[in-house]
């Protein structure tokens, strides 16, 4: 169909459809995504829980009646250096007649977690019903040591960890 010249001038050119301008959106994304990526934590954050709602005070890890009374009260004492008398180590009372002393013979400055782990495995193997353990901690024991001790107890079948600070000074023997 032919148009008159005047009409032909008014004809609009056929142009391809315009794409929306995505550059501002891209700018926004390029800014936000690195920001959010920085905030994401790569390492796996975990939690260790203590529960104080169970009867008996002190602090039991069991909810409600979970921390029932058991025949033996196993006490795990975490010691630290105090003067020349106390060494970094563990002492387990209430399991055998004599307290079990666990110390690191190779390096006196470090706690012997391997030995503690073995002992806890043995205790649990000999008495499957045991679930409660009381951890008594000296004031100068590091927080990291306390948490790793609680961790080992929980890993070895003692879900009810009772945390107590050492209120009396440590004497020799049992």
């Amino acid at each position: 169909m032919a148009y008159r010249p005047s009409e032909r001038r008014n004809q609009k050119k056929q142009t391809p459809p315009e794409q929306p301008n995505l550059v501002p959106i891209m700018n926004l994304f390029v800014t936000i995504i690195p920001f959010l990526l920085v905030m994401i934590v790569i390492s796996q954050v975990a939690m260790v829980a203590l529960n104080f709602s169970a009867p008996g005070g002190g602090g039991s890890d069991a909810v409600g009646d979970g921390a029932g009374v058991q025949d033996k009260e196993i006490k795990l004492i975490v010691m630290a250096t105090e003067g020349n008398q106390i060494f970094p180590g563990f002492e387990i009372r209430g399991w055998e007649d004599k307290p079990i002393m666990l110390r690191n013979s190779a390096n006196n400055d470090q706690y012997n977690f391997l030995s503690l782990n073995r002992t806890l495995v043995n205790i649990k193997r000999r008495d499957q019903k045991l679930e409660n353990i009381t951890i008594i901690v000296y004031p100068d024991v590091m927080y990291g040591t306390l948490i790793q001790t609680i961790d080992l107890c929980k890993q070895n079948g003692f879900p009810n960890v009772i945390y107590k600070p050492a209120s009396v000074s440590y004497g020799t023997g049992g």
Partner: protein
Amino acid sequence: MRKVRRKFYETTNLSITSLLDILTIILVFLIKNVSMEAQKMTVPENMSLPTTITNQELIDNGLTVLVKIYPDRILIGTDNLKAGTLQQLVEDAETREIIYNYMQHEASQIAKLNTRKGTNYQPCLLIQADKQIPCQYITQLVKIGAGASFANIYFSTLQDQNWLQATANSVQ
């Protein structure tokens, strides 16, 4: 004279639609993960958390109140309000009272929320402390928390399945 015209090729637009799709998906994913609650679970700056194998979940209806313990300061709440120093925690009753009042206020807010909305949220105390801090300060804080109606106390750690083996290797 004949003019030689150089032939210009039309530049094709870079199609960024698919890239935009990917970025949108990533953005949604990241926004979902980076929430205020997730912030409580992250590792605070300049703090070295202890490592554990255990990873216990927060109780379903738990609302956390955060306490960060650095060697030189104690920060409470998500706003990181400075409550004092470790020394003050042990020696200064006023510092202990500030922390206690804050915790009790937070616990009462949760109780009010429960009354208003008919929910059953439990106040949980989340302690993030540097592993080199002596336990006496942690004990003090746990006592304050337990006194302020916090039945559930959590300690932030880093999960490491091999820390025991690593310790054994370092000893040998």
